[in-house]
């Protein structure tokens, strides 16, 4: 089923001095999908997400919503980005961080009980953010992401720091979010994780966009490039295309 194109990213380029993190990257985000930005470490996934969210300045490139170019400010009404590896407000209790998310960002109070239950936040609420383990902190960050009022959520490495059981449970939680009309863009470096959860994929390698599409579309692209036996899973496809 073809879904509506919600946003288009085009010509996104970002350099740090002489190093080009992403080069002329363009793709589309479709309404109600889980889009995986896939690539090894250093592929430019984080830079891409941060440039799209306007958290850092791109050298060039734009994000359009329904063919209308967006400014950094107008983007913030539609997109919300949660980085990986941060521990915001480390001296504050998790409960306060949740309150702040809802109060400052105008987060979705109606979703709070469900999100807190799905991410098992109750045991963490009285602990300070800085005292949490990596996995616990990731759960808090995911809660922040899912409580955001914006319809499109960009999450950097959502599975990082989670154990197998938590990863599986998170997949269900994310899928539930999408079923309510939300759109998720996830940057994932574990291709197996991405293959399980994402509807479509954007493959990045060394800052370049290698391919974009569903698993089937990528398989076709890989096979046409290989010219022999079809690549089976996403890992093989990725290797074939990069």
């Amino acid at each position: 089923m073809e879904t509506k194109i919600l946003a288009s990213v085009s010509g996104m380029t970002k350099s740090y001095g002489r190093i080009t993190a992403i080069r002329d990257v363009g793709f589309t985000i479709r309404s109600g999908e889980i889009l995986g930005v896939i690539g090894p470490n250093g592929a430019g996934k984080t830079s891409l997400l941060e440039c799209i969210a306007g958290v850092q300045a791109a050298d060039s490139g734009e994000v359009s919503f329904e063919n209308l170019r967006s400014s950094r400010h107008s983007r913030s009404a539609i997109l919300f980005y949660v980085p990986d590896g941060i521990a915001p407000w480390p001296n504050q209790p998790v409960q306060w961080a949740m309150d702040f998310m809802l109060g400052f960002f105008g987060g979705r109070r109606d979703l709070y009980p469900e999100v807190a239950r799905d991410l098992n936040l109750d045991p963490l609420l009285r602990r300070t953010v800085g005292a949490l383990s990596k996995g616990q902190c990731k759960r808090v960050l995911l809660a922040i992401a899912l409580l955001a009022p914006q319809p499109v959520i960009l999450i950097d490495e959502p599975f990082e720091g989670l154990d197998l059981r938590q990863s599986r449970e998170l997949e269900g939680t994310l899928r539930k979010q999408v079923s309510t009309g939300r759109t998720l863009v996830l940057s994932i470096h574990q291709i197996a994780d991405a293959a399980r959860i994402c509807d479509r994929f954007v493959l990045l390698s060394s800052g370049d966009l290698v391919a974009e599409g569903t698993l089937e579309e990528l398989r076709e692209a890989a096979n046409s490039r290989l010219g022999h036996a079809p690549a089976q899973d996403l890992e093989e496809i990725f290797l074939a295309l990069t």
Partner: protein
Amino acid sequence: MRSPESPWMWLVQKEWRELVSSWPWWVLVFLMGPLVGVSFISAVRTYAEASGWGGTAGGVGEAFSPLVGIWAPTFSACEVAAAFLLPFVAIRVVSGDRQSGALKLEIQHPMSAFARIAAKALVLLAGWLLALAAPALAVVLWRSYGGTLYWPELATVLAGHMLNAGLTIALAVAAASLAEHPSTAAILTLAITVGTWIISFIAAVHGGFWERAVEYTPTAMVAQFQHGLVRLDVVLAAVTLIVAGLTLGGIWMRLGVAVRRRIAESLAVVVLTVAFILLCRLARPSWDTSENRMNSFSQADEQALRQIHNPLEIEAHLAPEDPRRVDLEHRVFSKLRRIMPTVEISYVSATSIGLFEQTNPHYGEIWYKLNGRSLMSRATTEEAVLATIDELAGLKPPEEMSEDVFRGHPLAVPPHGAAVVFYLVWPGLIIILGFISHGRKA
């Protein structure tokens, strides 16, 4: 869940929680007690001795004013804290967001970066006000000893230290927003503070432009307020610098804006700031809030000087480091500029110390020109200068009015209980409050 408030109020609440959960602020508040205590105890003891306590000749302190004897030294502890402790508190508040990654979340809110910086500055200023509870305790103790208070001068001292704190906060906020790491911001802030001291040193050696520029450094500004002098140009310049520092902080907090644009905006802010400060120099009004009118001539002399409408020109042949010039400037010319805004004072010297100019027969001369007439004098006292101006203007020297004479407030009482308050009670209380505050969140 809390009831909804405006996003800005949420931010203010967040900044406040971040401030009271940061150890640097508690260290600042903790140290304010002993710092103020040392200054206050020493000042009260000296004041008491000069007033006749401990067998010294009574009456020495008859002309003593608590402003210079007690409040200037007591509040000088705030200057030390503002220079060496407050910057770290401010840097912690700004850099903490960057270090923890909270900034990347917060900047996605459409609120302007300047509103965000304003929230931080407001909370830091509130934190500084709380730290000023230590000198406020000194005021309470002074009253309990039977000391007199003249509220306008005390309020002026307080205002000077609030402005100084504002300057420190603005500088630290700008540095913390510019620098990637808090230690870089700390080095940058301290370098600028030391830079202002270097300007003071250059001004003392070279005079001229530097002498004018140094009036806008925090140290000189605080010194003026500590003497009960409020100059509109200095206040406007300080406010301009505070706004500029906070604006720079806001510019560099916008991580999503291209660096080139941020540099261009910063340059525009610097140019505008310089232009504003140059304009500030045109604001001449000033107010002497000291009880003993230490920044003013006697009312009779001022009335006489107001009768002179033509421009008075003064040319003093004295080197910048000559003590006579320092006396002349601080005790006479600074008062003259307040009452005669059109007076033009210039200094002439070939060297900075003047020691080797003594053989020049013109060295030490002070020339006064008014209405086409000139007079020369070498005297540098207030009385002699005023007498020369009166003679030049053809005015009869005014008689001294008895109500003009400040009789002073001697107080021969030692600082009873101050050591216990500042060295035991204050630090103990702050430690307990600090641990309670941190314990609540743990």
